[in-house]
């Protein structure tokens, strides 16, 4: 498949635009998906507590259709990764993601799930987007329930803007060695200088 961008040019010629039925169908499907996202709470740490607080009565996820937590990935729509993910857990969260059927989305909740947070060390994955594709990042340590709800609203907007004619959304992309954008893993190691002020911290002391 390769990492080619989908063709999203907008045409104003009436014949090539989508018809009324197609747009109404899009709206119906997207609206029902967005307002009944069943979350799979992949809560590992402190953010899981904030997620529970968001689901509780004061902030209430039920008004977004998300009160039915699905702990089986087979029945879930959104994987909400709340908390730090150690390297030991990495293949497991990848397998959970692969077990979720399409359509699926992912919210990375908190600093640790987004970038590794304060745990820039040997044991924590520096952002789950290195393992699974993420749709919405919610920063915070932990994010306030209002912050998480804002992230959920952003996801709902993303879902509402999907179109059936865009066939690339529901495809799971694997890197294609034949594409001209493909970078082999050995070259990525060269490019992968640690981020920010952690340069040269991989060398042994002193």
């Amino acid at each position: 498949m390769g990492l080619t961008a989908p063709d999203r040019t907008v045409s104003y010629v009436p014949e090539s635009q989508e018809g009324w039925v197609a747009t109404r169908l899009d709206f119906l499907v997207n609206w029902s998906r967005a307002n009944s996202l069943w979350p799979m709470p992949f809560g590992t740490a402190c953010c899981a507590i904030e997620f529970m607080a968001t689901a509780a009565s004061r902030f209430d996820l039920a008004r977004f259709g998300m009160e039915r937590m699905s702990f089986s990935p087979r029945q879930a729509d959104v994987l909400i990764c709340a908390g730090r993910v150690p390297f030991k857990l990495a293949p497991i969260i990848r397998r959970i993601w692969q077990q979720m059927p399409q359509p699926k989305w992912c919210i990375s909740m908190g600093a640790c799930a987004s970038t590794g947070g304060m745990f820039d060390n040997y044991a924590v994955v520096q952002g789950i987007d290195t393992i699974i594709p993420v749709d919405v990042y919610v920063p915070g340590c932990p994010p306030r329930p209002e912050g998480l709800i804002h992230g959920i609203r952003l996801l709902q907007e993303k879902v509402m803007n999907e179109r059936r004619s865009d066939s690339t959304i529901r495809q799971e992309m694997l890197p294609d060695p034949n594409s001209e954008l493909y970078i082999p893993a050995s070259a990525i190691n060269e490019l992968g200088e640690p981020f920010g002020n952690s340069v040269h911290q991989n060398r042994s002391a002193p």
Partner: protein
Amino acid sequence: MAGSAIANAPAPTTPKGVTRDGGEMNPTAKALSEKFPMAVERSLVVWGETTIFVRPSSILEVMQWLHDDPTQQYDYLSDVTAVEYRDLDQPIEVVWHLRSLPYRRFLRVKAQIAKNQPLEVPSVWSIWKGADWLERECYDMFGIKFAGHPDLRRILMWEQYREGFPLRKDFPLRGRFSRAEQLRQALDQNPESRYSMEELTVADAFEDLPEDMRRRLTSGERTGE
């Protein structure tokens, strides 16, 4: 019952006004240096807690005596850990935290092992079964081998972890490999190498339940929530 070895044991209270030096030494220190004069190197009291330095070669018999002797009865192993000091010339110390529930005592036993030798100490698993995972954690983080341990393998990091021993002083905080390589190796690990999904299904585990549980479950008794 805690405190059962003390006659007319009063209710335990939190000690107040504990000073760094000058605390009362645990009577075990004196008894130990009388019983094993060659094994005990020194003992000291810091913040009210007694620490005894023991030669690594005599650890096993010292621990056995501490567990079995009726005047000691250290029946609870709290922790097995290790210390490596920032002064890299100091030896690595392996630390055992022992508690005597009948006597309500706490004891810290340390063994110093030189870094230029292979890091090995005897395992106390035969005495306290709780040492199983405690010693595995110590091995995982420091690389100290426990001779006589039934199943010494990594516990906090995955079993095929190759970067080294994370809590050693020469191990950098972010690990030795690049992030991409760490991720690749982490995704490559096989977390199910020691068990299979089949043996975790309830039907298969039924045979391993104790006999009275099997009887209660087959008779339809609601044993859970």
